[in-house]
């Protein structure tokens, strides 16, 4: 039983981490309160759905690997959308971060209704590849679903890639420079507009990956994003807004809490309990779990 719960904790942790990584960049690093983040996840899910439809029609023999293509496509679809969103809307709002909340809330409403009207008002069925459907039977009583193992793997892979990108590449360096000190980075001649656009696109793309992998666990419907958005914000803020590491730690903490609370309490009370705990911890760590020590 402990093994099952431990694995569930790991699985919930990786799900929360996937959800929050994109927002940690968009909100944490860039300060954009992106209320359409949930709808971007839904976009990733729909991109995966589209891929499955295409594969079913043209490459039925390759259905077993469509999902990998779906994840990649989801990343590109949402990041391209993110790029244009940044160029057309967000770039004018960096000086007014609270207004981004209003504008992206509007964008989210529009996206939701587009899904509803042009794709399907009801949830669509995204098939799970057969090799992801099985379970890994460890012992008689202990078995882990393959789909969750896959998500855990994907989450860690994504987190590692994001880390490598931000800390080991030149572009990543530029991103860190611009987000940490706009004035100075501009002064040394970094093209901030370009950096902003692809940072935002990266964050959106990560939302796409998250949305895509969640098709294995939950529904793909116009309002799918609403189920994720609040948790995502709580994870990012709880970790300490400006810290990616904090986001990961906070996902771990909340994931563990959720798993054990839900095991011993009824679902609703567990949820209320987690939120109470978040408030209590914020009381003692007013700048999130991992506050960067700065004089304010």
């Amino acid at each position: 039983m402990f093994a099952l719960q431990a694995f569930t904790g790991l699985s919930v942790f990786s799900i929360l981490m996937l959800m929050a990584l994109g927002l940690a960049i968009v909100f944490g690093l860039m300060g954009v309160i992106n209320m359409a983040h949930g709808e971007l996840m839904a976009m990733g899910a729909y991109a995966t759905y589209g891929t499955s439809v295409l594969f079913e029609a043209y490459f039925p023999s390759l259905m077993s690997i469509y999902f990998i293509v779906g994840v990649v496509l989801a990343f590109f679809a949402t990041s391209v959308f993110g790029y244009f969103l940044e160029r057309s809307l967000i770039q004018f709002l960096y000086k007014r971060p609270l207004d981004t909340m209003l504008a992206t809330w509007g964008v989210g409403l529009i996206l939701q209704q587009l899904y509803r009207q042009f794709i399907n008002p009801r949830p669509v069925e995204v098939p799970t590849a057969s090799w992801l459907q099985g379970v890994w039977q460890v012992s008689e009583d202990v078995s882990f679903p393959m789909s969750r193992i896959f998500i855990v793997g994907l989450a860690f892979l994504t987190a590692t890639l994001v880390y490598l990108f931000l800390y080991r590449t030149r572009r990543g360096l530029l991103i860190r420079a611009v987000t940490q000190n706009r004035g100075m980075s501009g002064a040394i001649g970094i093209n901030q507009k370009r950096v902003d656009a692809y940072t935002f696109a990266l964050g959106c793309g990560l939302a796409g990956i998250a949305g895509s992998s969640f098709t294995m666990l939950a529904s793909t419907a116009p309002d799918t994003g609403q189920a994720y958005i609040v948790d995502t914000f709580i994870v990012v803020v709880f970790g300490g807004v400006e810290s990616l590491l904090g986001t990961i730690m906070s996902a771990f903490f909340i994931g563990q809490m959720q798993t054990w609370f839900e095991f011993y309490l009824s679902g609703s009370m567990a949820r209320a309990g987690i939120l109470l705990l978040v408030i209590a911890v914020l009381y003692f760590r007013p700048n999130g779990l991992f506050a960067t020590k700065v004089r304010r």
Partner: protein
Amino acid sequence: MSDRNRRKFIKTSAMAAAATALPMPFIWPKGASAATVKMGILHSLTGTIAIAEKSVVDSELLAVEEINNAGGVMGQQIEAVIEDGASDWPTFAEKARKLIEKDKVASVMGCYTSASRKAVLPVFEKLKGLLYYPTYYEGLEISPNIMYTAQEATQSSIAATEWLYENRGKSFFLVGSDYIWPRTTIKLCKITLDRLGGTVAGENYYPLGHIEFSSAINKIKATKPDVIVNCVVGGSNVAFFKQLKAAGIIDAGTTVLSLAVSEEEVSGIGSENTAGTLTCMGYFQSLSNPTNEKYVSAFKKKYGANRVTGDTLECAYIAVHLWAMAAEKAQSFDVEKVVAASSGLEIDAPEGKVKFHTDNHHLWKHARIGEFLPDGQAKMLYESPLIEPDPFPKL
């Protein structure tokens, strides 16, 4: 694929047609110039509940079309006035008031959630309107201004529990979304189990929209029940079934019986995830009787061969017919006369002959247990005799 395309094409072209012919307000059908009678349709076309309610409107419009083609009600064509409740209860109350006061509709087909019905109930009672409510619900209500055309909780929960106890096992794990319908249904289930001598292995409620059921699944694995009774509703069901399937519980032979999953929900959950699980409803698309075959083929002809219907859609469909029949019988659209004429009114419905109770506004209905097949349809395993509606059970 081609089906998917066609379905999409039909949807979008229907949408385009609606857009070009969009008067204020949207009226169906056009050109009914002589004697017409207005009927309101009040469901959520936007917001979270739109998932479930949009197709209910389709089924109601089908019934309107059938009645109009057959000459209307007392020679008058029905003119449907559609309003959007937007998944928001105050909006439902506002639109109900508008339909009755401004549009002066003779009746309203509407609401899906209990919360929306509770919000419009005082409006209908005060303004003397008439509402037909087509969703299975928890009971505990008889309004003089509402007719209920679906099962109330005792009509499914008790029969299902008895059948499961006799055929599938004695220990039950109960799981539901956290609101009144699952709680009432599960309460009835527990009382029935108590009477029979079964045991409750666990009871869990999750907030609406919850998508992480792995802890619930671990509890199920720990308690090893014979039967899981599932009262989860809406999008959460997709997550519940996918995760149950992935954990290997469905394949391991545990019986899963859902009380809120019809053929329609299966299309979103994925039929491979529901195959082998049971459902308890008043109606299945696969029922074989002439009325049902006629209804299903008309529905598919109008909305596309790929569309499926289900319990709520059928109840909405018969609701329109029941209203038309009652008005014919009363020879009046007056609410009190229509309600009086409804008492004991019998209809040959797709779900078989059902009739209104003489005084509690609910229908005598069959409870049917079906097993989902890999194609998403349900194969009937058990059919109860007509069950008397008892919205206020003495327990």
